[in-house]
């Protein structure tokens, strides 16, 4: 593997990592703050992609589709939270897994009823359809570069919000100790709803960005959900920093594992990595709760 190819594969790994981070960020906050396992996060990813594809079909503008589909997914998430999930914050993890598992089946069928079982087209926006020559021998698809950029901006933005704003302080307080936070007068209910909607928006964004690369089809959220869960757990539940580092790690390990190892071993790599890390640090790399 020469330097140019190595660079390209590294970019591929980081780009996959960034995509996973968009998913994992919402998961880890909902996990950490509400103590809720939300398997419907993959469905929100799917909903974002489908709404964007439908809007693109009508308007022909990717940007317009993106601008409307992200808040639409946030709204869908908020509705889901208010209608069902809110009632499960105080239940055990088992009940949460089951309810959200049931919801996955329901949401998949609803999407299939609306848009059908055939994949829906969502092409790369014209402006980003080409490749960019980065230096010497390395050319890279513009759209993947755009994903990298969006992911980096979102990561920085999230970090800034969580670390340096009042809302961020409440979120952190909620994540580390819910009871004390509410005793301090933080409106925990409102924070929960906001965090959930924000997480949904990020999942929708991830789905929309993945749409032009992957197929927009029923069930597209599940494989990504599993990877995002792996990222969340390796990073440490509730930790944005952990999710970011773990996402990049998984992206790079998966990319190079696939290229360098035999296929069966390549697909086991990230699960082995997760087992090793949890055996060594049972609460992930950056545990939040005491």
């Amino acid at each position, binding site marked *: 593997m020469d330097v140019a190819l190595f660079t390209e594969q590294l970019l591929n790994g980081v780009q996959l990592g960034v995509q996973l981070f968009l998913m994992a960020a919402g998961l880890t906050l909902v996990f950490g703050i509400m103590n809720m396992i939300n398997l419907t996060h993959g469905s929100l990813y799917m909903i974002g992609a489908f709404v964007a594809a439908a809007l693109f079909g009508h308007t022909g503008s990717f940007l317009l589709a993106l601008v409307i589909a992200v808040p639409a997914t946030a709204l869908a998430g908020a509705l889901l939270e208010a209608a069902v999930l809110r009632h499960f914050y105080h239940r055990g993890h088992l009940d949460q897994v089951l309810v959200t598992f049931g919801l996955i089946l329901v949401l998949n069928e609803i999407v299939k009823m609306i848009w059908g079982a055939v994949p829906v087209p969502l092409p790369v926006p014209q402006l980003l359809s080409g490749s960019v020559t980065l230096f010497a021998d390395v050319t890279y698809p513009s759209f993947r570069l755009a994903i990298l950029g969006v992911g980096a901006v979102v990561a920085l933005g999230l970090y800034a919000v969580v670390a340096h704003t009042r809302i961020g302080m409440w979120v952190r307080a909620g994540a580390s100790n819910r009871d004390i936070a509410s005793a301090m007068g933080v409106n925990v209910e409102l924070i929960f709803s906001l965090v959930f909607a924000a997480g949904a928006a990020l999942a929708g964004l991830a789905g929309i960005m993945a749409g032009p690369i992957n*197929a927009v089809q029923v069930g597209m959220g599940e494989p*990504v959900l599993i990877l995002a869960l792996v990222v969340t757990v390796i990073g440490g539940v509730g930790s944005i920093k952990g999710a970011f580092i773990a996402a990049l790690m998984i992206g790079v390990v998966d990319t190079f594992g696939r290229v360098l190892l035999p296929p069966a071993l390549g697909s086991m790599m990230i699960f082995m990595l997760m087992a090793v890390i949890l055996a060594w640090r049972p609460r992930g790399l950056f545990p939040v709760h005491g």
Partner: protein
Amino acid sequence: MKIASIALASLLLLSASASAEEPVKIGFISTFSGPSGQLGQELLDGFNLGIKSVGGKLGGRTVEVIKGDDQAKPDVGRQLADKMIESDRVQIITGINFSNVMLAVAKPVLDSGAFIFSVNAGPSQYAGKLCNAHYFNESFQNDTLPEAMGLYLNSKQAKRVYLMAPNYPAGKDFLAGFKRTFKGQIAGEVYTAFGQLDYAAEIAQLRAAKPDAVFFFYPGGMGINFVKQYAQAGLTKEVKLYGPSFSLDQTVLPGMGDAAIGAYASAFWTEDFDNPASKKFVADFEAAYGRVPSPNAANAYDGARILDAALTSIGGKIEDKAAFRKALENVKFDSVRGHFRFNTNHYPIQDSYLAEIVKDAKGRPTMKKLELIKADQADSYASQCNMAAQ
């Protein structure tokens, strides 16, 4: 147990006396739910349209098609087959689209004396050593279309070809088929995890290998992802894509969009075949279901018409299994594929063509037939089949 045997005896008597009145019962097991759920519907739509095209009856007898959803799970498929054989007493099982479901279902069905009549899945085991008097496949054997593409690329004097497929038995069959006929150099042979979403890493390796052509096999969503990402990497014009029609048919082309334009497929049938049977099929299918049919639907359509032709030739007596088998082996019918006959191993002998992916008048990507690659193509496992021993 006595009651059971009396009941069974009376049922046998009943079915013997009433054979002309009873409907032909067909069990249609396929994947109707989950991510691959569309393929089952495609096959069933084609099959039903085929029955309709011959007047709604098979060999003059009414038909009862019992549908079952295997959910892509072999054990569920097996259970459905048991139910259809034992409760519904079907004479034929058809519709199966996954080879692992076929392997779970075939043995018990054949052991019970019923027929397997595949309109899709074609595992090599049943084309070769396990070939069976009551097992027929009228669609294709996995290796044949890649073999045809190997022949075509020989004729184009392609020197270095890069191969890609998912890491599962059908994927290995497809690449093995290609290597059997292709005489040039293999620039790389890559197997990816089944269900992989992102092919950026593999495409980077591919670009670095600088091949003359790429032969790939990715069914369903995997194919959509691969072709779109290949186009985004800017390789579509530099290195042409070649694949069997299953990677580039109407079940995936709408999802690929423009990314697939300019790719080549080897096919037994394309949407623009100009024989009357095919023209009628495409027009009827679009009128009935509002979409362009895929080769899978065409195969299923042919399947129903084969059953009708064979049953007509024996006066509808499906209960006479030996006669039905003979009738199938020598069946003559108007295939949408033009030439078709069964080989000694009960798999097809048919013509393979080259097709290019182009836009049709409405701007939809479709397969356009270019040239005949090989007439009367048979699969390579027939020699391992000893049907006389059956």
